[in-house]
Structure formats: structure tokens, C-alpha cells
């Protein structure tokens, strides 16, 4: 467009130049023609005047013209005409040959005039003098009269000296006769001499050939003029061709202008449509701050007769519509201001932006809805942010986009750490692959998946979560996001396990209690019947023996009750957990007997865990008691306690150098009322390790055993760290 405009401009300039050239050419041609006519006339006039001069000079010499006035006029005319013919008009140097000729000719004219005047004088005087002489001396006058007749009239163009034969006669007359006659004869001699001189002067005059120089100059001028005409014609043709070309260009330009006009119309219409389709009120001001374009919304916003002609009116118009603006469109230039229309409680954002051509675009955006949505969004966001359920939002490729603070609390991962990563990072490896497959099948089908997963925290600790994962679809049905809402159900899980354990325990305890209690009770009953008979037989020895058995049965029963009580206490709720120093617990246990104090070694720093101090003391008490109970008689007892961080918690190993346990018994030993050794050698209710396991589970931990018979047993205890619970 720009290039096209430049071309058009050039064509326009060329057209003007051509028109100017035409005007100049025609002007030059007409002035040239005028000048040419004048020059040709001057040539003709020069030739004519020169001829006239020649003619009148002849007349003067022939005494046909008695005065020189015409000669003077012609000479002056020649001079003035020559002076009037500048070199420019006739062609430089064209008259150079002619001017000196004319100068010489005019000088010759003066010569001829002077001599001719003398001849004329003598011709006038001689008859007068002879007439006078005739009156006084006729005889003397007669030869003079004859001589005068013979002298005859002067022939200016005669080439023969007609008076040559008179010379001797005149010489004779000049010597004889009277003084007067001699004088007259002398004058005649002078006349003949002067006639000769005049003839010479005339032939000298006519020897000067000016006419041919003039004719040559004239033909040179005519040739130059013809050449100039030729050039002018050529130039004219060139101009005509150029003009034709320009007319073509003009046509092209007009057609292009038409196209451009249509295009501009179309553009304007499209612009108008586009602007009308805007939801914002749109106004465009030109560099004179006049309103040039506005849309329907703008008209709706400023209805009625209040016409906004320029930018200056805008502020007043907004005020009239009850829009109170914090900044307002006051200054010409980029601006942004929020306006509130109190009557309708609508909010507008005023924005202005300068355009490239120095105008200004003004937009008034109604963002009331936006504000409401935003408030809604804030509420929802707050709900999500503050939700006790951890929320994870991923994109369609399962890259994490958002996690709420609860997620961070739950997993230990900050939002920045997980952004863009796959939730797979949380997998513990303890969930069957089929579960995940099923989950993705469900989700891909666009359905909501519900399930439970074991995941791993940042700390390494495993936890159970109950997850609800739903796909989010856009309006086109395409899945854009997944939202997972997950709840940490580890505690519930643990509590459920504990409940199940408790039930099993209860059954087992009922059975064991009924079984284990029945035996001492039957013993007591048997020996009571025996005692009754022995009392009757007064068998003192037998009575003492029976009382001993009864006592033994009662003590057995008491031990069982004690164990049951302890086991029952081992399932206290987790709500009462407090930070507990394991080392202090161990030391407390060790301090209860000298044997224990001697045997227990704390090899590493023991951690602090969250738990029930009483249960933990019970746990370590049981372990230490077991170690002491199953010691090797020949070896001094040693209980070595170590701790190390593992799986986001602490593993505490309690190793002894006792008798050890056969491998086949390692699993069963943890169930209540199991015992490997006869009560006689190793007293106890068979509830020790079962209680320990139960306490570990209550704390969310695990307990397992390693043993080498004859070498010793190591009890492994894993507890969550105090921070992660």
C-alpha cells in the first residue's frame, strides 16, 4: 500500500512535470515563433534597408537626390537594427561576418557622400562661374562652356574615365586666358579629379559585399532554427508519449484507488463489526482528540442526546452517567482507572492506550460479573485450601498442577516440589499393579475411581490413603484434568486392625483363660477334696502336701490374672500419645533390678518417639524380662539395645545372648498364651511378646524377631518418628 502510494505520488509528480513541460514548450514554441518571425523580418529589413541605402547613394552621386537625409536615416536604421539583433536571437556569431562589412560600408558611405558633395559643389559652381564669365568675357568663356558640355553628366557606375581626354585641354585652359578663366579651368580639373575619386569611392563601396554575408547568416540562422524546430518536435513527441503513459498510469491509479476504496470500505465495515461485537465500550479518538469510531456498547453506555464529540467530553459524560472514577479519563495518554456506577452497582474498568498515529483508544469494560465470579472463586479456593482432605489436581497427562496445604501436611512435600511431577512419585510399591491398572482404566473411561492406596511420605513413612479420583472434562468432553481427594486413613486402618486383634485376643484369652485357669482351679478343687479326706484321716503330712498344691494353684491363677491385666492395658488409645524419650524408658526398666542393670547396654543414641510412656515401659520391661528369663545359665547375660532411622521411623533392636529360639517357632511365639518351655522351668503367662507386638501396633509400629538357637535372640521394633505422626 505504501509502495503503491509512493508510485502514485511519483506518477502525479511526473504528470505535473509533463504538464509544466508542455506549458513551457508551448510558451517557448510560441515565443520562439514570434522571435523567429521578428528575426526573419529583421533579416529582410536589413537587406531592404541596405538596398535602399545603395539606391539612394547612387541617386545622391548622380545628383538625383540633392540631400543626404535619407542616407543618414538608412544608416541609422541599419545600425539600430544590427544592435537590436543580439547574438542570442540570430545564433552566436551568425552576424559576425556581416557587422564589419556594414561598418566598412557605412564608412564608405561617408567617403562617397563627402566626395559626391564636392563633385556636386563643383557641378553647381562651374555653370554659375562660367555664366558670370560669359557676361564679362564671352571669348574666354566659350572654350570653358564647351569643355563643360564635353564633361557631361557624371556616370556613377561608368567604369571608364570619360574625362581623360579633357585633361590636356583643361591643362591648356588653366594656363592661358584670364585669371577668372584659369580659376574655372582649375575647378574643372578638380572636378574631373573628384569624379575619378568618386568613381573609386563608389566602386569601393560596392566592392563591400555585405549581402552575401547577410544571406549566409540568414541561411545559417534558418538551418539552426530548423534544427531547433526538429528538436522541439522530437521533444514534443517524447512528451506526447510520456503523457499517454501517464494517462495510462492515471487510469491504473484510479482503478487502484477504486479498489483501495472498496478495500477501505470493507475494512471499515469489518472494523465496525469487530468493534460492535466487543463487550467493552470502545471509542477511538484521533490525534485531534476527536471521536472517530465507537461501538454499540459505547452508545448504550452513553445514550441520549449527550453526544461525545471529543475526548474532553468523555469525563463529563461519565460523570453524568453516575460513574465515579478513582482516576478517570482526564489525561490524554495511557491510563487505567476503575469506575463504579452506583445506581446500577456495576463496576467498570477504564483503559486508554495511545495509537501509533497519535490517537487514543478508550475501553470501558464491565467487570461486575468477573468480580462476582472472582469472589466465588475465592470462596471455593479457600474451601479447597482449608480442606482437611488433601486435594491434588493434575492435568490430562497426570502432571501435578495443584496441591492444597493439607497435601503438604500429609505427605511432607511442598507444592513447588511436586508441581509438574506425576503422583506416581508417592507410590510405595506395596500396592498391587492391578490396582493401578484398574484405576487408570476407570479414569480413562471418564469415571470416578475410589480406592485405598499405600503411599510413601517424603520422610519415607508409609501411609494408607483413601482416594477419590475424578476426571474433569471441558465443554468438548475432553479430559483436561484429574482431581484426587485423598484422606489419610492410616489411623483408621490401624485402629481397625487393633479391633480385629482385640477380638481375636478376646476369643483366645477366653479360651486360654478357660483352659489355663481351669487347670490350677481343678488342681485346687482336687486337693481341696483330698484335703477334706485327709482332714478326716488327720493325715497331717498329706494335708500339708495338699495345702502346698492349693497354694501353688492359687499363685498360678494370680499370675494369669496379672498377665491378662497387662495385656488388656496394652491396647490403650493413641490419643494420649506424647513425646517419649526411649533412652529414659530403657533406663527406667534397667533400674528395676540389679541383674537388668548389669545386663542392659545402650549402644547408640535412642530416639524420641510419640507414644504412651507406660506402654513403652511395659514393652521394654517385657523384652528385658524375656531376655533374663531365657538366659543361658553358663554365660553372663548381655542385652544390647541399638537404634537407627529406617523407613521414616526408628528401628530399635534389642539383642540378647540367651538360649535363642528355633526358627520354626519364631512366628507362633508372638500369639498370646504361646509358650515354648514348661512352666516349671520358665514361669509366665505366655503373654509377654504378644503384649509387645500389640503395643508396637498401637504405636503404628511393627515388631519381629530374629534368633539363632544357643546364640541369642534379637527383637526388632520399628516405630514412626515423633515428627511424622
Amino acid at each position, binding site marked *: 500500500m505504501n509502495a503503491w502510494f509512493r508510485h502514485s505520488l511519483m506518477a502525479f509528480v511526473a504528470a505535473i512535470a509533463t504538464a509544466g513541460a508542455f506549458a513551457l514548450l508551448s510558451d517557448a514554441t510560441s515565443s520562439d515563433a514570434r522571435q523567429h518571425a521578428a528575426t526573419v523580418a529583421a533579416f529582410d529589413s536589413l537587406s531592404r534597408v541596405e538596398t535602399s541605402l545603395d539606391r539612394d547613394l547612387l541617386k545622391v552621386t548622380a545628383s538625383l537626390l540633392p540631400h543626404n537625409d535619407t542616407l*543618414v536615416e538608412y544608416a541609422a536604421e541599419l545600425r539600430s537594427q544590427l544592435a537590436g539583433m543580439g547574438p542570442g536571437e540570430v545564433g552566436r556569431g551568425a552576424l559576425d561576418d556581416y557587422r564589419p562589412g556594414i561598418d566598412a560600408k557605412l564608412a564608405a558611405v561617408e567617403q562617397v557622400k563627402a566626395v559626391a558633395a564636392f563633385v556636386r559643389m563643383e557641378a553647381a559652381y562651374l555653370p554659375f562661374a562660367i555664366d558670370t564669365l560669359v557676361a564679362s568675357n564671352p571669348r574666354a568663356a566659350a572654350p570653358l562652356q564647351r569643355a563643360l558640355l564635353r564633361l557631361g553628366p557624371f556616370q556613377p557606375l561608368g567604369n571608364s574615365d570619360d574625362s581623360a581626354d579633357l585633361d590636356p585641354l583643361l591643362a591648356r585652359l588653366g594656363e592661358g586666358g584670364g585669371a577668372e578663366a584659369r580659376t574655372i579651368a582649375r575647378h574643372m580639373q578638380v572636378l574631373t579629379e573628384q569624379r575619378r575619386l568618386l568613381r573609386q569611392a563608389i566602386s569601393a563601396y560596392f566592392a563591400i559585399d555585405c549581402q552575401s554575408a547577410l544571406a549566409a547568416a540568414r541561411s545559417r540562422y534558418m538551418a539552426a532554427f530548423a534544427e531547433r524546430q526538429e528538436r522541439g518536435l522530437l521533444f514534443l513527441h517524447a512528451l506526447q508519449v510520456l503523457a499517454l503513459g501517464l494517462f495510462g498510469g492515471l487510469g491504473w491509479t484510479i482503478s487502484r484507488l477504486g479498489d483501495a476504496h472498496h478495500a477501505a470500505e470493507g475494512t471499515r465495515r469489518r472494523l465496525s463489526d469487530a468493534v460492535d461485537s466487543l463487550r467493552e465500550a470502545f471509542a477511538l479518538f484521533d490525534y485531534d482528540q476527536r471521536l472517530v469510531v465507537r461501538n454499540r456498547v459505547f452508545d448504550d453506555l452513553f445514550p441520549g442526546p449527550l453526544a461525545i464529540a471529543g475526548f474532553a467530553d468523555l469525563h463529563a459524560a461519565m460523570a453524568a452517567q453516575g460513574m465515579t472514577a478513582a482516576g478517570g479519563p482526564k489525561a490524554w495518554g495511557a491510563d487505567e482507572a476503575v469506575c463504579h456506577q452506583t445506581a446500577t452497582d456495576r463496576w467498570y474498568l477504564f483503559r486508554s492506550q495511545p495509537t501509533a498515529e497519535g490517537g487514543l483508544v478508550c475501553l470501558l469494560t464491565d467487570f461486575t460479573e468477573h468480580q462476582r465470579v472472582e469472589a466465588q472463586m475465592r470462596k471455593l479456593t479457600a474451601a479447597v485450601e482449608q480442606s482437611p482432605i488433601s486435594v491434588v489436581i493434575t492435568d490430562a497427562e497426570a502432571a501435578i498442577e495443584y496441591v492444597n496445604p493439607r497435601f503438604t501436611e500429609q505427605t511432607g512435600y511442598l507444592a513447588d516440589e511436586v508441581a509438574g511431577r506425576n503422583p506416581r512419585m508417592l507410590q510405595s510399591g506395596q500396592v498391587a499393579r492391578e490396582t493401578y491398572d484398574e484405576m487408570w482404566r476407570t479414569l480413562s473411561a471418564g469415571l470416578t475411581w475410589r480406592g485405598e492406596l499405600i503411599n510413601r511420605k517424603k520422610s519415607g513413612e508409609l501411609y494408607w490413603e483413601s482416594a477419590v479420583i475424578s476426571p474433569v472434562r471441558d465443554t468438548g468432553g475432553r479430559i483436561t484434568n484429574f482431581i484426587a481427594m485423598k484422606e489419610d486413613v492410616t489411623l483408621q486402618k490401624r485402629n481397625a486392625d487393633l479391633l480385629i486383634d482385640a477380638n481375636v485376643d478376646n476369643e483366645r484369652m477366653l479360651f486360654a483363660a478357660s483352659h489355663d485357669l481351669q487347670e490350677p482351679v481343678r488342681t485346687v478343687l482336687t486337693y481341696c477334696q483330698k484335703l477334706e479326706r485327709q482332714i478326716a484321716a488327720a493325715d497331717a503330712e498329706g494335708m500339708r502336701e495338699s495345702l502346698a498344691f492349693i497354694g501353688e494353684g492359687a499363685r498360678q491363677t494370680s499370675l494369669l490374672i496379672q498377665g491378662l491385666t497387662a495385656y488388656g492395658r496394652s491396647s490403650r488409645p493413641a490419643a494420649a500419645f506424647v513425646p517419649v524419650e526411649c533412652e529414659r524408658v530403657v533406663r527406667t526398666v534397667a533400674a528395676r533390678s540389679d541383674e537388668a542393670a548389669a545386663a542392659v547396654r545402650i549402644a547408640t543414641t535412642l530416639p524420641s518417639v510419640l507414644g504412651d510412656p507406660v506402654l513403652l515401659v511395659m514393652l521394654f520391661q517385657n523384652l528385658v524380662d524375656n531376655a533374663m528369663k531365657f538366659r543361658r545359665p553358663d554365660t553372663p547375660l548381655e542385652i544390647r539395645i541399638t537404634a537407627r532411622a529406617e523407613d521414616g521411623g526408628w528401628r530399635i533392636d534389642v539383642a540378647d545372648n540367651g538360649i535363642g529360639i528355633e526358627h520354626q517357632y519364631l512366628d507362633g511365639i508372638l500369639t498370646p498364651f504361646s509358650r515354648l518351655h514348661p512352666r516349671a522351668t520358665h514361669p509366665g503367662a505366655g503373654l509377654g511378646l504378644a503384649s509387645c507386638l500389640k503395643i508396637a501396633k498401637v504405636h503404628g509400629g511393627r515388631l519381629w524377631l530374629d534368633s539363632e538357637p544357643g546364640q541369642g535372640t534379637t527383637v526388632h521394633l520399628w516405630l514412626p518418628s515423633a515428627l511424622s505422626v
Partner: protein
Amino acid sequence: MRGLVAMAMATAVAVLSPRAAFTADAVAGGHEPIRPLMAIAGVDPAKAELGRRLFHDPMLSRDGTVSCASCHVLDRGGSDGRPVSMGIDGRVGIVNAPTVYNAAFNLAQFWDGRAMTLEDQVNGPLTNAAEMGTDWPTVLERLARSPYAAAFRTVFGAEPDAPAVRAAIAAFERTLITTGSRFDRWLGGEAEALSASEKAGYALFKSYGCASCHQGAAVGGNMFQRLGFFASGGIRAGGPLPADLGRFNVTGRPADRNVFKVPSLRLVTLTPPYFHTGEVATLDEAIRLMGRLQLGRDIPDRDVALIAAFLGTLVDPAALATP
């Protein structure tokens, strides 16, 4: 007899140049060597008026004491009656000031014809140290500061410059034509305009051959002629001066020694003293001197008186311009 000769000549020339036979002079105008004076047509009155003012304005001289009219006194025959004129500072010239009347008919200006036009002539006295003694820049500067500037703008459409000044003065001089003399009336057919003796004087003027040089409308002024055919040597009493070489000073040709412009005799009775030297005080003396110089004889007193009487008819003194 002269008529016969003339007719023969006329026939001869007519054969040579057919057109010549029918010119006004040859056919109708009689065969008198003197023609009546006619006012010059086509002179711009505005220029002439401006020229008249300049002609009389001493501002054109260096010290503002001398105007053109100081030496060319219009009511004294266009001359000043002095042998030689007096310019600024009382300085005197070398040759006699000729009359300004009928100068337009002269084939050239000055005694030696060194200026071809009236316009060129203006330069002479203006810059001659013994006349007005100034130069063009001075004159033009004075004119530019004077009321003349406006007049020049009106007449020439430009500020005063030398060509305009010259043109104005020349235009004025072209108006100084002494028409309406008794002799011209006689030429026009008014037979009683001249007395018998004046007519006789005219006849002698022709017979002595005076009219061969003093002819035309201005009775002279239209040719150059040697002063002294029959007598050599200068006419100046104190011996020749360079100016007495006449036209030789202009052309440099030996043949032009002692050649001068033939002066017009129209105002000869009003403009003594005579000749370029201004040493001849009376007209009679001048006529006698011409007879001796040009004809080699003494003209009898009776004839001199007649000729002088005739010369008196060539101008009407009452019709001369007054300043």
C-alpha cells in the same frame, strides 16, 4: 541644362533601379536640396518632460552649478554665444558649443561625430572635466535620493540608471525641432514667404555649391566634410590644436584629418560665433571664410549679404522654446 543632365541621370538610374524612379523625392518633392523640418513622431511625452527637467537641472554637474541648459540656452538658439563654453569651476572648453536645436537630425553628435546617437552624446558633457565634470555613479546616487527617483519609477518603471537618464534627455532633445520657418513655408508653396533678395540668396547658396554640403532638413548635419578644399592648414588663429584634427581623432584614418561634421545652418543667424573654434564672430565673415576654404574664391559682399539674408529665413526665432 542642369535639368537635361538631371533627366538623363534620372533615366539612367531608373533603368538601373526601377523603384527609385518613383520615390517621393525624385518625382514629387521638387529638387530642392533643403527640405522642410518636421517634428519627430513617436517621442514619449513623459520621457521628454523628464528629460526637460534633467536638461535644466544643475544637479547633473559635480558641484551643482552647470546644467545642460547652461551652455545650450534654449532661448538663445540652443547655444551660449561664447566662442567656447564655461563649465564647472569656471573652466572653459576647446571647441564651440553647437546648438541643441535640431541635433536629432545630425548623423552623429559633436564636431567630430564621436557619438552616434543623442543618447551617447549625453555621456560627453556629463563626464568632461571642463563641462559638468562628474560621473554616473555620483549622478545616479543623487537622482536616487531626489524626487526624480519617483518620476523615473513612473516613466521607466525602475530606479534611475544611466540608460534611462540618457533616454530621457535624448527624448527631450528630439522635441527641439525648429519647425515653421519662413523658408519651410516657402518650400511648402508659400511663394511670398521669402523676399526677392532672400530668394536670390538661396539661389546663390545653391550656385556657390554651399547646398551640396548644407542640405537636407537641417541644412547640414547629415555628412562629414573636409574643412578647406582649396586652402590647407587650420583655421585656428593660434595654430592647430589636437581637436582641430576633427574626425581623425575618431577614425584614425589619415583621410579624415580636418574632417568635421557639416554643421546645420538652421539656426546659424542665432548662434554666433562660428566654426568649431568659435573664433569667427559674424555670419558674413563665416560666409566669406567658407568661400575661401571650400571654393577657393572670395564671395562678393553683395552675394554674402544675400546669402546671409537667406540664412535668416531658416528659423523662426519667436518659435524657439523658452526654458
